[in-house]
């Protein structure tokens, strides 16, 4: 596989190193001279100096081949957006992964059709919510392309679903239970699974069905 990695900071350099270790062909692009010179000691001819939003820089790195994947991993969201658009729409690169630095910019990536994206801040916040829940329904994962999301719900004593079998719950259209975690063990949820107080239930659902699911499981 041939990959172009844009941005030679901690994220980009580590990704490039990991890809090389897996035996892939990689070109790393870094704009800053000081960083480039340090990277050159390690990556030699596999790192090039330049602004990865400039077409001639991307062309020198072989964007016209085109590569199997382009990774836009700089610390600048606008740069990552432009690199991704140019790679996909001008050079027909099939796979682009973009880094989102400021989670508020996620909407711009979505608007311009750049997917998948990775945002460390959003990931950390999702984990914080998972570890220190402040809400009765925790968003674990958003599957943007599929337009689905996975949530976790804690069943308590007052929940109307406690003591009921899954097949007897009136789950909303577009929502399914995946698994039940009880006493430190997880089980796949099927129709015969009976929910109990203290269960941590994973559900997959279409965005917008949260309130209906919450009503059925928790009556809130």
């Amino acid at each position, binding site marked *: 596989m041939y990959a172009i990695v844009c941005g030679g900071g901690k994220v980009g350099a580590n990704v490039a190193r990991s890809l090389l270790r897996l035996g892939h062909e990689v070109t790393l692009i870094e704009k800053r001279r000081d960083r480039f010179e340090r990277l050159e000691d390690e990556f030699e001819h596999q790192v090039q100096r330049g602004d990865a939003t*400039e*077409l001639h820089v991307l062309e020198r790195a072989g964007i016209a081949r085109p590569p199997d994947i382009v990774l836009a991993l700089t610390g600048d969201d606008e*740069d990552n*957006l*432009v690199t991704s658009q140019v790679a996909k*729409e001008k050079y027909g690169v099939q796979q682009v992964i973009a880094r989102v630095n400021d989670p*508020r910019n996620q909407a711009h990536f979505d*608007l*311009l059709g750049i997917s998948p994206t990775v945002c460390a801040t959003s990931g950390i916040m999702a984990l914080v919510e998972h570890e220190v829940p402040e809400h009765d329904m925790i968003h674990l994962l958003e599957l943007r392309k599929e337009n689905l999301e996975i949530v976790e719900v804690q069943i308590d004593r007052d929940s109307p679903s406690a003591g009921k079998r899954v097949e007897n719950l009136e789950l909303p259209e577009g929502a399914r239970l995946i698994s039940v975690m009880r006493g430190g063990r997880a089980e796949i949820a099927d129709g015969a699974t009976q929910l109990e107080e203290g269960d941590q239930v994973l559900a997959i659902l279409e965005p917008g069905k949260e309130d209906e699911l919450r009503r059925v499981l928790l009556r809130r």
Partner: protein
Amino acid sequence: MKALIVGCGRVGSSVALQLQREGWDVTVVDENEDALTRLGENWPGTFLVGQGIDVDLLREAGIEEADALVAVTDGDNTNVVIGQVAQKRFDVGCVIVRVLDPARADFYSERGLRTISPTKTAIASLMDAVRSCEIPTPVRISR
């Protein structure tokens, strides 16, 4: 008519002042509050400090009612992102962005963004100027 100018450098401030003189309701956004001085002592329009890709700031600046948006920050990539957000998300009718790099300007104008590339304009003017020079015929000096 309402105009939003993102980036208040030499170009942005001049465009803002001229539009305002022509009767537009002008709001200017810049990340640096000192940029306000470029608009003179008695700027009658609105001036907001912040990042032009911040949707909350754009809303506060009235992007939802804007008839025109001009993106002239010092970053080409910032300008094309703001321009596309204005066009695709907020349906601003007239969106114009400055893109210094001619290659990126061509790419985004092919994709329906109105781009102005001062670099391209400068190259064309300079070429015209050189071509129109009257070069005196060299005089041979014979001994």
